[in-house]
């Protein structure tokens, strides 16, 4: 039923009347309506601003936490690197310098020997001829016959020549001996040189290690002194690590899928092909469990070998227990690899049997091939044996993936929080402006009355002449009032 029919009079007149009444009512309630709209929009805007501020604070906390985690992980990585460098130095010192006393003794002996040989090889000049003094003495004899003197001198000459020849022979002989001694010294010198070169290499190696340690320590100090730069660098490094680790993980998943296909069919021979767990074949689940157990053993093995650090409990074990754990994990892995190899063999047999059956059912004669089928069979067996060990190495990218994923997740979370805060802030502003807009629309509906009101307020005030205030009676305001 039409509402207008309830009112007296024709509807054509009633509608404008009602509209006028509505406008008057809206005008009367204008202040309250404006206040209500303003309060509501202000409340919404304040609430959204508060929410935005809280989210920004949460974002700051998350960012701070990310920063701390990133710095801690960076410091841990640097410490690990330093520790490994020190271990290498220790190994180098133990390997190279533990023989140093023996080497030193060896070299000292060699030097002593060389010294002795050198002493022996010293050049001994022939003794000065004593016959010169004899000739001088004879020549100074005052009264001796010249012929006698000549004869004596002749004898002396002969004796001297003989002695000279003997002396020269002796000298040559001694020189030869010295030369032979010097020749014998050559290998000693070479050995000495080799030893010195080896020592030089070892020292150079140690110097290189020391330089690497220096570099690590410098980076570590930089991380402590300028954390912002370190955070930026570590973040970038984490993202790169995430991508690389993700890529390797995808490859590993591909390997795991091949492994799964290799053992799923023969597993149905063991657990039955018709049974299901949930909506999955039991044989598929069993094959998956074997692969997962292999991956778990690989993780334990890598952890026990201290290649990864995913489980602090394993890292905290004493060396004997840790090595024992590594052997246990390796043994289980070896057994599972053997089982997989056997399953791969069985798979080949089953596949050949099924192919023969299909041929028979299709009406063709079953073809039996001889040695040609050995290659794929052996290939499958080798693959079945190798893949579990290959999957062991998934632990390394997994560790990187988890660690860098934490950073990436933190970055994503901060980005999302920041975006939500901005949206809330904008929404608050929009709510505030919407309130103003609603008030404007409200005023637009009653603008005739507002116009009248404005005109009334702005009319000039006419003061009666009798009530005019004299200028001297006007009370001054402001500073001059007291004066």
């Amino acid at each position, binding site marked *: 039923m039409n509402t207008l029919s309830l009112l007296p009079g024709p509807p054509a007149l009633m509608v404008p009347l009602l509209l006028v009444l509505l406008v008057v009512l809206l005008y009367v309630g204008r202040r309250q309506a404006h206040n209500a709209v303003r309060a509501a929009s202000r409340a919404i805007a304040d609430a959204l601003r508060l929410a935005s501020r809280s989210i920004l604070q949460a974002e700051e906390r998350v960012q701070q936490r990310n920063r701390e985690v990133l710095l801690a992980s960076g410091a841990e990585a640097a410490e690990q690197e330093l520790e490994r460098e020190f271990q290498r130095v220790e190994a180098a010192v133990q390997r190279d310098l533990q023989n140093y006393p023996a080497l030193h003794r060896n070299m000292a002996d060699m030097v002593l020997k060389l010294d002795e040989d050198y002493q022996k090889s010293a050049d001994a000049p022939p003794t000065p001829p004593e016959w010169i003094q004899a000739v001088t003495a004879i020549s100074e004899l005052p009264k001796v016959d010249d012929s006698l003197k000549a004869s004596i001198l002749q004898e002396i000459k002969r004796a001297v020549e003989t002695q000279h020849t003997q002396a020269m022979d002796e000298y040559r002989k001694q020189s030869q001996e010295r030369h032979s001694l010097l020749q014998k010294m050559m290998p000693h010198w070479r050995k000495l040189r080799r030893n010195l070169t080896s020592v030089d290499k070892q020292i150079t190696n140690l110097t290189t290690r020391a330089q690497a340690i220096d570099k690590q320590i410098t980076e570590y100090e930089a991380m402590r002194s300028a954390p912002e730069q370190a955070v930026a660098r570590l973040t970038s490094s984490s993202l790169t690590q995430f991508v690389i680790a993700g890529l390797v993980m995808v490859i590993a998943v591909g390997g795991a899928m091949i492994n799964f296909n290799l053992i799923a069919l023969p597993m149905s021979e063991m657990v*039955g092909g*018709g049974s*299901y767990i949930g909506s999955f074949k039991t044989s598929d689940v069993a094959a998956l469990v074997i692969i997962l157990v292999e991956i778990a053993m690989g993780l334990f093995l890598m952890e026990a070998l201290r290649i990864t650090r995913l489980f602090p409990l394993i890292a905290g074990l004493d060396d004997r227990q840790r090595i024992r754990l590594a052997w246990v994990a390796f043994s289980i892995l070896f057994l599972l690899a053997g089982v997989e190899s056997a399953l791969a063999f069985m798979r080949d047999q089953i596949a050949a049997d099924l192919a023969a059956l299909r041929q028979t*059912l299709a009406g063709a004669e079953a073809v039996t091939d001889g040695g040609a089928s050995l290659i794929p069979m052996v290939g499958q067996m080798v693959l079945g044996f190798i893949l579990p060990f290959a999957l062991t190495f998934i632990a390394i990218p997994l560790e990187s993936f988890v660690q860098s994923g934490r950073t990436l997740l933190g970055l994503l979370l901060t980005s999302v929080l920041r975006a939500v805060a901005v949206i809330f802030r904008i929404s608050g502003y929009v709510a505030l402006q919407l309130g103003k807009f609603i008030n404007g629309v409200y005023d637009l509906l009653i603008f005739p009355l507002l116009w009248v009101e404005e005109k009334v307020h702005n009319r000039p005030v006419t003061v009666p002449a009798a009530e005019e205030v004299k200028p001297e009676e006007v009370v001054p305001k402001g500073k001059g009032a007291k004066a």
Partner: protein
Amino acid sequence: MKRLIFGLLLAAPLVFGCADSTSHSRAVVLLIDTSGTYTGEIQKAQAIANYLLATLQPGDSLAIARIDTGSFSEKDIIQKITFDGRPSASSQQKRAFKEKLDNFVKTVKPSGYTDITGGMIQAVDYLTETGAGKRTIFVFSDMEEELAKGYVRDFPLEMNGCEVVALNVPNLRKDIMDPRKYKNRLQEWEKRVVDGGGEFRVVNDLDRLERLLGS
């Protein structure tokens, strides 16, 4: 330790509660019409049976029965088997099955009447016994029922969710004269099967059988 026990208790319903009770195995019955007009098509039926043998998985069930004068009889089941869960044993069973089927094809004799309803009832009973999740009856026949005197088959069928697939339904001489008879015959079967709680379809192109079994 307490935490571990608590965790295991929490995980137990997740592991055991989510167990799927529905059977994932498939059971198939192939009814072969051996009436006089249709015996010539038996080679095709043999090919279909071989195809079923190649397609069915370990744990599935298969039965082959003939449609003759009185098909609601155990002796009309040529061979029935539930394949072993192990693929190797299942292959051996399939080979033995094929041999028996080959012998049947060689020695089959045409029957005077065609009791399709009796064969279907027999097939539904067998399929229900297997407890398989997916149950299918392949009827290799012209779907023209001819009953001997005294056989009563004009009662509703109870299909128990079985799917009936009529294979290779040829046009009979009377159908050529009046094609409506062919349509009416198939519609009548469809009505009986659907009213009994089953599904019905016709596959004349045997290449489509592959898609049908693959689904």
